[in-house]
Structures are given as structure tokens and as C-alpha cells.
């Protein structure tokens, strides 16, 4: 059976390109220009999926992105995609798709038993049961529910395709490439304005693609082609087919998803991004998205073969598919007559079932002239067919539309097209904070008061269905938008000739009566096909008091499917309005939330993945670190050498502990070198620089002599330590500040904030110079000898004392050498402009060979500083610690009346006794290394809860002290030095610890001079 439902003489297909595809394991053919849905229908495939809750057989309901039913699992392996709407998949050769949410097969689905007991699954049933026994919820009930729910399956492999983002700017963005949108783009484009025209379909033309309308006496599609050709010639116009504008955000910022290669399938050129995510900033926006047809809510209106009237017409005219032989068109309006007429002309036997007792209008006349049977004042009240519709029963209905007034008549049919009128697509209008107005004549919401960014709407999206009016609206809005953006005179192009649309009024029957009262019997009146929400669910929600539209939505899940209720929301509102016997606008509308249609996470992320996810910042010496086999630590975005494991001749590589022990010993025995380039560095200049530092540090800076350095603590206004570092006075009005690696940006921001906003009168300028300077820190007894080999600077302690700086050359490169120490040993921090960093590092490495130089990383740095009780902000402090808590009163100036944070010291809680304070800890077992984060208690209980006194902030094995050492924040710790406390661990072990001073090594500080 090959495309036996294909019409030979219709459709916009390239029949020269025959495409083969597979659905549920069976192979079919279609043509370039088909969607998966049209190709399936051409091959007579109607049953394509199972519904969410009842697992009822479902088919193709629409021909567009509003599709609630025909969701398939597209492709397999790394490129598989769940919940893909068959109606928007452009067919390509080799396409593979499968039905989802059914097992073992779509034809025989075990869970379709749910239909039998559907009575037990009214809206919100799960809130009322599965409560006994309570312990069963997660392991039993919920497991079952989770398995049953969920539609398609997630991919299980990494996505092989690439994605891109594009920041675009334009004067006029036109959303929608139908007649109104094309007209708007023409009017705007001709003014020279920058215009973007985006449409979600594979080709522009919108409704005209399914229609036989004339423009200026010629086929409308000729006009479309002519217009697109003109637009293509306009340099500043960008035409984006297959591009869905998904979100409308503040200040005319709109997002759009362009499907660049999806229609080519996996064979596409892998250099080209699969999808491009546009982030568009527009001066003006014209919304011309068209309208979506509403289904009628009648008994068992969900069988495969039951579809929207306009969709059937699209399949016939655009895709050359007549998916059935016997067609029933069930309608409340004239527009569906076009479908009936086209189906009739295409060779189908057609019955029209019209709710209206006395439909008028030319289309009705035309249908009558064609001898199409029209059943007036009638409704479809039942449908039949297991896997596809085979027939329906119709009956006359009462004037109030609530009951049947005749016996039912059976009509055989394999397609049941229906129309309940139209909903303009107002999603983006609403996303842009625009109000919606209920048009009582057209029975739909139309754009009302515009949101702040004043978009304009044109075409059927405003409830205007006459082609001429759509065109003239488009031209007018396009010209006006361009003018508002500063282009053109606002002159509106002349609208071409079209045939005026004459239609009779609709008849609204929001719930079509069935043979039994609503909710009785087996029949179901679906309004949300995907989530299986039926009219009686709305009645139940109302009955139970879930009256607000949001409660209705959340209680029944109506409109919460992957289609976001494009076909169901208004029907649901209207039914609720009837029940409450209120006007529809009183019931309200739920907020339309982005995206308009679902967008792939991959596209949103674009290139920001894998190696481009977050930058890896490295110093100028990084190549050397790699050569030296460093293992790196992530510190913020920086990659810093963590330790340098050695590999023995026999090929055995040191563990982290082994490497760190060796590095720790060797630094204190001979000399070690650390890359300290990542520390934040700030150049501070101006005559008030010293006074400024007096404000931002706790100690005094005006007394510091040029060429000398000082350590400082920085507090926030809460009085808590938030950064520290050594700052050097280069000249009276010039300082070089260092900060923590992670704190660099925060500190600069903090300084700029105060100098710009609070003390603008102070003459001080800050400039970040972090990367300007590469820093090699050499420390250890041999540091002076090593440095002497590569510099001619005087290094004797008298001319170059501790906490001093001098300039000169090191290894031939210009350098600033700071004699400051974070290890307690003799140390030099050699700063050179980054371009020289690698050269100087290598020179020192070479020279170091004769001095027993050892490279060390951040872990050894941490151990060595802990041996000396030097804090790490962020490890030994946590934003709740004052200088006094750190036993660092000495750094808090008593001479200054004020500095940032000072006042907070005097708050009752900050000055109270018993605050947590930094102390040293020595374990009873000298070889036991406490886990960092372990808690300290007075007395141990058999099991928690236990009152804790504080926690271990730093803990290491120190080869130089010859035992484990730790720092901890302990309540009243400073007073309690000497006390013995306990550290109960989560594994049950309890370690006794003694509170000590924080300095474990070289207490008298003899080593800093080498």
C-alpha cells in the first residue's frame, strides 16, 4: 500500500523527490514538501499514538504546531527526540519515527485497560486516594503513576549535533509569514528599515498555502512568490522560514528558534548548527501569527480520523492527501464549508453536519449547488471505530443546544472534520503584557490594550479573516511600525484586489450533547485531547470549588500538555463560564507563558557547552605546569596547580598525599616555587589613596612608608571579614593591593562602589592589574641564593628586609620583587609583566636545580600556611567572623574613629562573650587527620542530637610539625586553649582534641629571614 490516499493533481510537493521513511518499523514513502503527518495520512496511517491518561487510540488532529495528539518518538539513538509533533516534522529521506506511550504496540496497548476503569480517574482523583497506607505512596503508588505518565523517552546518549545563538537587532520584527505578515514586511522593508520576517512553517504563505484565493485576479501564491522575491532583494530584510518566535520579553526582546537542518535529517553537514536560537532586540514588533481552529467538544471526539476542518483542507490542498473516502464535516460556522467543498471536489463522499438551523452565506449555497448533503440544526452525538473512526450518529438538537430533539441517524465515515470557530493566536501579545478582549461577535479573544512595548497585530490574529483586510492591515501596520522606528513616511502601499469574504454567524454550543447526560455512560467529551481532560472534569472542578481559571487548570491539568492548550483553553473557559453562568472574560484567561512552542535545551545553550561552557582561566605559566605534570584544582574559573606528582623510573606515580608530603618537606628544607599569579591585584593611585585604604582596611595605612608592604583585613559593614591580602606602597600616592583569587572582582567592585558613590571627593583611582603581572613565589631557606642567581638586586636583609619591595630585573626581565611570605619561611614574590612570566618561571626552574628547587601547588601552600596559623578567607572564615573572632585584634586600629564595618563590632551579639573563635586543634592521636567540617562537642552522647561548640575549618597532616594539625572555630575558644574536647565523627569514631594556639611551626618566627 503506497500512498494510496495521495491525490495526483494537488499539493505543493516536489514529486521528483520520493522519500522513504519508517514508522513503527514499517517502511513508507512520501515526497519532499510532506510533513511526517501528511506522509502518514497519504499512506493511510491514522492511528499514531496513545493518550496520556486513558491510553486511548489517537490520530492526527491538526496540520500545525497546535497538534495535541500526534506525538512521536523521532529517530533513535543519540538523535532520538520524544514528543515530536508529526505535523511539524518536515519529511526527509530515511526518517525513522515510532509511536510512544504505548506497550507493546500502539494497536495493542496493555494500559488501555485504563479506559475500562476510567470512571475511577476523574480529575484530581490522585488527591483523594493512594493515602493508605502512607508508607506505600513513594515505593508503590507513585512508582506506578510515574511509569504510566511521561509520554516519550529521553535520549540516553550525548547529542552529536551542534547549536548556535545569534544576537539580532532590527527596526521591525514581523512574526508570521502569512498574507498579513508578508504585507507588513513589504511595507516596512521598502522604507529601508531593518526587517526580520519569521515564520514557523517550511515555506512562507500561511493560510494561503492551503487555499485557492486570488489576488489581483491571479493565484494568491503568485503574489506570495512575487512578494518574497522582492523581500529577498531588499538588503536589510531577513527572511526566516522554519523559525518559531518562542518568547516575547521586556523591551522588545524576542527569542526565536530556527530549525536550520532538521528538515535534512541526520545527514546534514555537521559544520552547520542543527538549530539556531535567535535573540532579537526589535524597535517595533508586528504580530501576524494567524489563528488556530477550535475543535467541537462532542461525544468521543478523539478517535483517529477525527480532525480539525482546516487541517483536512490543508492536507488536501497543500499536501495532496485526501485521508479518507467518506468525510463528515461537523461545524458551527461557514469556514468549514470550504473543507467540505474541497473534499467533495477531490472525490470524497461528503456530509455536512451544521449546528445552525438556517445557515446562510455563499459557501453554504455553493455546497448546496454541489449537491453536498447538509444536515442543518444537527450535531454529531456519537462516534464509532476502534483504531479509527468508522462512523458517527447525528441528531437534531434543541434551541438551547442542551438536548437532542430527534432520533439519531448513522453516517459511515472514515474522516470526521470539525470546526468550532477560530482562536486568534494571541500568545505573544499576552506574553508582552498585552491585555486580551473577548469579541462576543467572533466568539474569541483578540488583542486588547497593548503592553509597554506597544506591539501591533495584523491579520487573522486580530480576528480578521477577510484576505483583503488582512493584507491592508499588514501593509498599514508594517508602514506604521517602520515609521515609528524612524523609517519612511508611514505611507501605506495600495492593497491589491481580493474577493471579499462573506460568512454567516456561528452558533456556539460549547458542549455538544450526547446520547446520555454528560459524564454518564462511556462516552467522553474531550476538550484537552493530550491530557485527557473531558467536559465532565470541568463540571467536577466547578462542583468542588476549583472555580478560578488557575485552579481549574491545575486541578484538571487542562492546557498543561506539550501543546499548552492551543486547541483546548478557550473551550475549557467557555464550559466553565456556562457552568458558573458568567461571561467568558469574567472567568478570565490563564497567562500565556513562554515558549510559544517547546524549544530544545540544546538550542537555548547554543555554543555554551563542553569546552565553551565556562572559561578555564589560566596564568602565563600554564604551559610549564602542564609540562611539569601538574594536577589542577578548580579555584573559581581558574585552573591552578594543585600538586606536582612525581613518577618514579619504574613508572609509579605519587598519590596526592605522597606528593604533598614531599612538597611540604622540601619547601622548608630547600626552596619551593608556587605560581601565585591568580591572586587579585589592584593598582591604586591618587593623593587620597592612603586615606582611602584607612577606610577599607581595619589597620592604618598613612603610616606605611613607600617601598614597604602591609597585611590587611577587609570587612563588610556587618563587621565580618570578607577578604584579605598584602598591599604595598609604591609611592606616596601609589599602592599595589593584592586580594584573594576568588575575591578579586568582588573587592574591586567594593572599592569602586565606595569611591564613586560615597566618597567621590577622594582623589583615588583603582585599576585591576591581576593578569598584567605573572607571579612566581619562591620560598624556603635557599630562596635568597636561588634569586641571587638570576638577579643583581641587593638581597641582604638590611637593604631588602621582610615586607619590602624593590624593582629590578629577574632572569633579564623587568620585575617587582616583594619580600612577603605566606609560608613563614624566607620568601620572594617575583612579579613580572605576564609576557615574561613563562620565561622567568623556566629560568627559575633551571637555576633552581642547584638549590633543590621543588615546584608546589595550592594544597602544599594550604598546609604550610596552616603550620603558621595563617587564615584562608572563605575556609577559616565564613562571613560570620570578625577580626576579634580570629584573635587578630592587633590588626584593628584603635587610633581610627571609623572604618567600614567598625560600628558593627559594638552590636550586642557581635560583642558578646562566647562567640566562635579561631583556635588550633591537636588530636590525641598525632597521626589522625580530622575531616574538615567535623564538629566539636563538650560531652559526647551515644547518638545525636549533640550540642556542638564549633567545627574544624582546616585540617592536614604536617610533615614539618610531625603530626596532624587543625584550625577550628570554637565557642569561646580563645579562653579555652588547653581544654580537651571531643570530635564525634559520622562513622562513630570519637577523637579527643586539645585546643591550642593557631601557630604550630616556628612559633618565634625565626625562619622568615632564611
Amino acid at each position, binding site marked *: 500500500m503506497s500512498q494510496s490516499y495521495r491525490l495526483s493533481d494537488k499539493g505543493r510537493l516536489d514529486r521528483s523527490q520520493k522519500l522513504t521513511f519508517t514508522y513503527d518499523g514499517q517502511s513508507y514513502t512520501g515526497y519532499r514538501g510532506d510533513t511526517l503527518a501528511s506522509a502518514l495520512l497519504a499512506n493511510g496511517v491514522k492511528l499514531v499514538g496513545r493518550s496520556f491518561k486513558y491510553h486511548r487510540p489517537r490520530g492526527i488532529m491538526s496540520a500545525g504546531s497546535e497538534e495535541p495528539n500526534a506525538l512521536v518518538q523521532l529517530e533513535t539513538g543519540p538523535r*532520538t527526540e*520524544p*514528543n515530536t509533533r508529526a505535523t511539524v516534522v518536515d519529511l526527509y529521506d530515511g526518517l525513522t519515527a515510532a509511536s510512544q506511550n504505548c506497550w507493546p504496540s500502539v494497536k495493542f496497548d496493555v494500559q488501555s485497560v485504563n479506559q475500562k476503569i476510567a470512571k*475511577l480517574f*476523574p480529575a484530581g482523583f*490522585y*488527591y*483523594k486516594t*493512594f493515602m*493508605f497506607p*502512607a508508607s506505600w505512596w*513513594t515505593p508503590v503508588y*507513585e512508582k506506578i503513576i*510515574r511509569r504510566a505518565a*511521561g*509520554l516519550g*523517552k*529521553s*535520549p540516553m546518549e*550525548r*547529542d552529536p*549535533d551542534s*547549536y548556535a545563538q545569534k544576537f539580532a537587532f532590527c527596526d521591525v520584527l514581523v512574526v508570521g509569514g502569512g498574507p498579513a505578515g508578508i504585507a507588513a514586511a513589504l511595507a516596512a522593508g521598502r522604507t529601508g528599515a531593518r526587517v526580520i520576517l519569521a515564520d514557523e512553517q517550511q515555506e512562507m504563505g500561511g493560510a494561503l498555502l492551503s487555499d485557492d484565493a486570488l489576488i489581483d485576479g491571479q493565484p494568491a501564491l503568485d503574489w506570495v512568490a512575487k512578494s518574497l522575491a522582492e523581500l529577498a532583494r531588499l538588503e536589510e530584510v531577513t527572511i526566516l522560514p522554519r523559525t518559531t518566535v518562542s518568547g516575547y520579553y521586556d523591551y522588545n*526582546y524576542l527569542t526565536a528558534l530556527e530549525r536550520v537542518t532538521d528538515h535534512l535529517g541526520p545527514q546534514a553537514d555537521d559544520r552547520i548548527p542543527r538549530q539556531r536560537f535567535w535573540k532579537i532586540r526589535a524597535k517595533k514588533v508586528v504580530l501576524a501569527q494567524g489563528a488556530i481552529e477550535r475543535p467541537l467538544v462532542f461525544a468521543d471526539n478523539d478517535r483517529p480520523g477525527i480532525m480539525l476542518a482546516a487541517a483536512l483542507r490543508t492536507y488536501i490542498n497543500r499536501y495532496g492527501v485526501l485521508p479518507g473516502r467518506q468525510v463528515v464535516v461537523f461545524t458551527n460556522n461557514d469556514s468549514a464549508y470550504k473543507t467540505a467543498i474541497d473534499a467533495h471536489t477531490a472525490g470524497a463522499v461528503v456530509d455536512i453536519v451544521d449546528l445552525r438551523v438556517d445557515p446562510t452565506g455563499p459557501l453554504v449555497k455553493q455546497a448546496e449547488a454541489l449537491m453536498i448533503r447538509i444536515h442543518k440544526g444537527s450535531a454529531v452525538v456519537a462516534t464509532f471505530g476502534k483504531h479509527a473512526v468508522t462512523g458517527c450518529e447525528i441528531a437534531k438538537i434543541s434551541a438551547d443546544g442542551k438536548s437532542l430533539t430527534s432520533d439519531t441517524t448513522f453516517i459511515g465515515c472514515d474522516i470526521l472534520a470539525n470546526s468550532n470557530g477560530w482562536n486568534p493566536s494571541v500568545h505573544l501579545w499576552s506574553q508582552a503584557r498585552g491585555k486580551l478582549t473577548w469579541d462576543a461577535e467572533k466568539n474569541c479573544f483578540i488583542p486588547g490594550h497593548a503592553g509597554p512595548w506597544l506591539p501591533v497585530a495584523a491579520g487573522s490574529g486580530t480576528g480578521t479573516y477577510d484576505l483583503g483586510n488582512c493584507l491592508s492591515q499588514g501593509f498599514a501596520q508594517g508602514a506604521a511600525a517602520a515609521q515609528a522606528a524612524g523609517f519612511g513616511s508611514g505611507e501605506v502601499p495600495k492593497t491589491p484586489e481580493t474577493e471579499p469574504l462573506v460568512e454567516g454567524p456561528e452558533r456556539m454550543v460549547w458542549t455538544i450533547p450526547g446520547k446520555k*447526560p454528560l*459524564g454518564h455512560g462511556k462516552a467522553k467529551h474531550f476538550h484537552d485531547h493530550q491530557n485527557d481532560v473531558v467536559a*465532565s472534569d470541568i463540571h467536577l472542578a466547578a*462542583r*468542588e470549588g476549583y472555580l*478560578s481559571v488557575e*485552579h481549574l487548570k491545575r*486541578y484538571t*491539568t487542562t492546557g498543561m500538555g*506539550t501543546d*499548552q492548550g492551543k486547541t483546548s483553553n478557550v473551550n475549557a473557559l467557555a464550559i466553565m463560564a456556562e457552568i458558573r453562568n458568567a461571561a467568558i472574560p469574567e472567568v478570565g484567561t490563564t497567562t500565556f507563558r*513562554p515558549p510559544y512552542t517547546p*524549544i*530544545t*535545551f*540544546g538550542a*537555548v*545553550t547554543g555554543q*555554551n557547552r563542553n569546552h565553551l*561552557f565556562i572559561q578555564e582561566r589560566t596564568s602565563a605559566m600554564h604551559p610549564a605546569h602542564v609540562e611539569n605534570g601538574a594536577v589542577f584544582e*578548580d579555584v573559581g574559573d581558574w585552573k591552578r596547580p594543585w600538586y606536582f606528582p612525581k613518577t618514579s623510573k619504574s613508572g609509579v606515580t605519587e598519590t596526592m598525599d605522597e606528593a604533598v608530603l614531599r612538597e611540604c618537606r622540601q619547601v622548608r628544607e630547600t626552596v619551593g616555587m608556587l605560581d601565585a599569579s591568580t591572586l587579585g591585584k589592584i593598582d591604586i593611585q591618587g593623593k587620597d589613596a592612603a586615606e582611602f585604604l584607612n577606610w577599607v582596611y581595619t589597620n592604618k595605612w598613612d603610616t606605611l612608608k613607600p617601598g614597604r608592604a602591609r597585611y590587611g583585613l577587609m570587612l563588610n559593614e556587618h563587621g565580618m571579614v*570578607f*577578604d584579605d591580602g598584602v598591599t604595598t606602597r609604591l609611592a606616596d600616592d601609589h599602592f599595589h593591593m593584592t586580594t584573594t583569587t*576568588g575575591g578579586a572582582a568582588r573587592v574591586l567592585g567594593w572599592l569602586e562602589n565606595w569611591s564613586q558613590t560615597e566618597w567621590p571627593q577622594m582623589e583615588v583611582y583603582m585599576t585591576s592589574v591581576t593578569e598584567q603581572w605573572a607571579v612566581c613565589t619562591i620560598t624556603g631557606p635557599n630562596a635568597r641564593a636561588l634569586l641571587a642567581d638570576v638577579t643583581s638586586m641587593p638581597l641582604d636583609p638590611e637593604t631588602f628586609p621582610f615586607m619590602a619591595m624593590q624593582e629590578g630585573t629577574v632572569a633579564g626581565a623587568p620585575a617587582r620583587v616583594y619580600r612577603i611570605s605566606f609560608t613563614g619561611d624566607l620568601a620572594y614574590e617575583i612579579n613580572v609583566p605576564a609576557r615574561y612570566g613563562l620565561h622567568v618561571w623556566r629560568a627559575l626552574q633551571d637555576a633552581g636545580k642547584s638549590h633543590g628547587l621543588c615546584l608546589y601547588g595550592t594544597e602544599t601552600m594550604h598546609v604550610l600556611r596552616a603550620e603558621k596559623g595563617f587564615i584562608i578567607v*572563605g575556609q577559616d572564615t*565564613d*562571613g*560570620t567572623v570578625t577580626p576579634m573572632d580570629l584573635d587578630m585584634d592587633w590588626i584593628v586600629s584603635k587610633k581610627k574613629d571609623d572604618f567600614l564595618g567598625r560600628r558593627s563590632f559594638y*552590636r*550586642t551579639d557581635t560583642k558578646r562573650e562566647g562567640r566562635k573563635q579561631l583556635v588550633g586543634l591537636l588530636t590525641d592521636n598525632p597521626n589522625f587527620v580530622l575531616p*574538615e*567540617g567535623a564538629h566539636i562537642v563538650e560531652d559526647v552522647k551515644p547518638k*545525636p542530637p549533640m550540642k556542638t561548640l564549633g567545627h574544624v*575549618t582546616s585540617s592536614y597532616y604536617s610533615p614539618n610539625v610531625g603530626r596532624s594539625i587543625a584550625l577550628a572555630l570554637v565557642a569561646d575558644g580563645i579562653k579555652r586553649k588547653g581544654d580537651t574536647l571531643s570530635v*564525634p565523627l*559520622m562513622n562513630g569514631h570519637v577523637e579527643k582534641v586539645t585546643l591550642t594556639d593557631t601557630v604550630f611551626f616556628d612559633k618565634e618566627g625565626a625562619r622568615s629571614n632564611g
Partner: protein
Amino acid sequence: MKKYSIFAIARNARTHHENWERAWRSPDPKPHYDVVIIGGGGHGLATAYYLAKECGITNVAVIEKGWLGGGNTGRNTTIVRSNYLWDESAALYDHAVRLWEGLSDELNYNVMFSQRGLLHLAHNVHDMQEIGRRGNSIYMNGIDSEFLSPEQVKEMVPIINLNCRYPVMGGLLQRRGGTARHDAVAWGYARAADAMGVDIIQNCEVTGFKIEGGVVKGVETTRGSIGAGKVGVVAAGHSSVVAEMAGFRMPLESFPLQAFVSEPMKPIVDCVIMSNAIHAYISQSDKGELVIGGSGDPYISYSQRGSFDQIEHVVGPVLELYPIFSRVRMLRQWGGITDVTVDRSPIMTKTPVENMFFNCGWGTGGFKATPGSGHVFAHSIAKGEMHPVAAPFSMDRFHTGALIDEAAAAAVAH
């Protein structure tokens, strides 16, 4: 209140579900109530419920300017946990978790509290120190807490990419943590409170207060004045606005927080996974949607929406940790207004106005605390003194400096 059960459903099925009673009445406001609760979200309704259930105060009104649970209750990512750093927080949040554990039963309304486990990932040394400290602190408070190795993380979350930009070094697991059905919490409390006589009044906005000699006497609303013996304000993002009506300011700022869900899929993520270093957290709802959130926008706003770049900053990390979701689609995004304090801990407090109590500042973490917050707040209002669990969270901590800084340990220099 007619009991909900499978039998009730079967019984009602026979009558085509036409005899279900209303879950709660919609009464007109009475002239006077012993207690008026401002704010019909989870916390407000829970407060009313416990006032009626445990404090014998049933002459209570909950007034809500919109629809029940329309604020952050209906806009959060439904995560429940109690693995907090400080003792005060642990006491409060674990009190809540213990109430969660019996809540469906207590309310005879299935709130679908699902203890599927909540996992915090550590991506660097600083993270490891942070979870090390928090894990131990939680353990010392008698709350369940386990450290996982990267291998154990992989076992629990097979789809995770351990070796991402910031390789996963370990995890902190609270098995008692999980998720719950957010709307059901509001509806369950409303139904149960209503059954005890509490008036739930929707579409009723507060416009001012009647305050005499520093004592609150009543509430002015869009549905007239309502006398009140005591007033409890549980207005989340709008707390500052309500406080202004009462004549004082709060140490609060209201920030947008966004979240989004994917299309529904068959079960793939079984627990809740949070990541500090790369701000993103993810779980999968019973419907099959991935529920994803991250950090909030940096500016104050009442617009109930945020900027799209915040969404991007969450999707990126999600794909870094779970690359297989690249072709999965975002279905729906939304935003809420979170009332944030400087120490990221809530405020439960007396106010400068006598008999007026505030419960706010829950920031991004309010949902998980709903039962505990309502419970201790109800007792505080009834007694006129803050409940011991609530006491540390009173407003004066911003003057004494006794903050409960849950923000501190996580985000600091290194």
C-alpha cells in the same frame, strides 16, 4: 468534611461523580474575627489550620487578594529538605519535614510528599569543605545526612556527567528530602481548615489597617473592613507592601525567581539533585516533566517575571551535568517574587504594632517549610509570644547582629 478514599471515589463513580461536596466554602467576610491571616498561600492556610486544630481558635479568616496558592506556593519547584547549616534553621526545617511525613494522612488530602532523596553535589575543594561542615552539622542535629563518593553519586544518578567542567568530587544526600505536589498543599490545608470553620476569602485585597494606640484592631479590604483581634501577615513577596500599610519597614527585598519544566518523559531522574558551584537544580515530577530552577535575578521586582539570560544560565549547567537532555525541550517557564533577607533566613516576628505578627523572608526556600512555618506561627499568634523554634528568627536579630546566615558558608571568597 466527607472523607476522601478509593472507596469514596468508587461510590461517587456510581453517581457519575455528581455528589462531591465543595472542597471549601466561599463565605463573605464576617465583621470580626479573633485572628485574620493575610495571605492565602501554603503558609497562611497552614497557620489557619493549626490555629483551629491545635490552638482552639476557629474564628479565623484567611484573606487572599487573588486565588489560593497563587503566589509562590504555586510557582516553586516543590523541593522539601531540612539539611540546613545552622542549628536554628535545622530545627525549623526538620520540624517541617516531620510534619510533611504525616501530612497527607493528617489532611486526608494526598499532597504527594515523595521522599525520593535530595542530593547536593560538590564540584571543588571549597564545595567539599562546605558539604563536609553542613553534613556534620546536620548529623549533630539528629537529621539524616550521608556523604557520597563520586561513584555513589553515579550509582544514584546514572545519567550524570561526573567529569564535567567542575568534576563532581562528592555529594551530600538527605534521603528524607524530596518533593511534594505544591497546589495540593494549599488545597489540602484550605479544605481541612474550612471544615473546622475557618473562613477562606479569595479575591479580597488588603488596603490598610485599623490601628488604635499602636494596637491593630482590624483590616481594611476591597471587601470592606474586617475587625481582628490579632493579625498574622504571611504575604511573601508583598510583605514590604503590607508592612508599609502598617507604618513600618522590613529588612526585606523582593527578587524575581524563575523556574521551568521540560516536556514530560518517562522516568529518568529519580531524586532531587542540586549543585552549588554551578547553580542549577533538577527533579522529575510525577507527570514526567523535568522541573528545573536556579538562582534568581539580581534586581528587585514585583513583575513575576525575570530576564531570559537567567534561564540560559540554568540550562547551560543542566546540559553540562546531563548532556543527554540536549534534545529535550523546555515546555513552560514562569517567575515568582521571593522576599529575601540578608541572611537568607526567614523572619517570624512580633512587630512594632501590637497583636500584629509577620511571617516572611522565606526567599527561595519557603515551600519546604510550609507545615512547620504554619505550625509554629499559629502557636506564636495564639500565645502572643514567639514559639521557641520561631524565636531566633525574630526581627530584632538585624539590630543585635545575631543573624542566621545560611548564605555565608556557601558563597564566599576562596
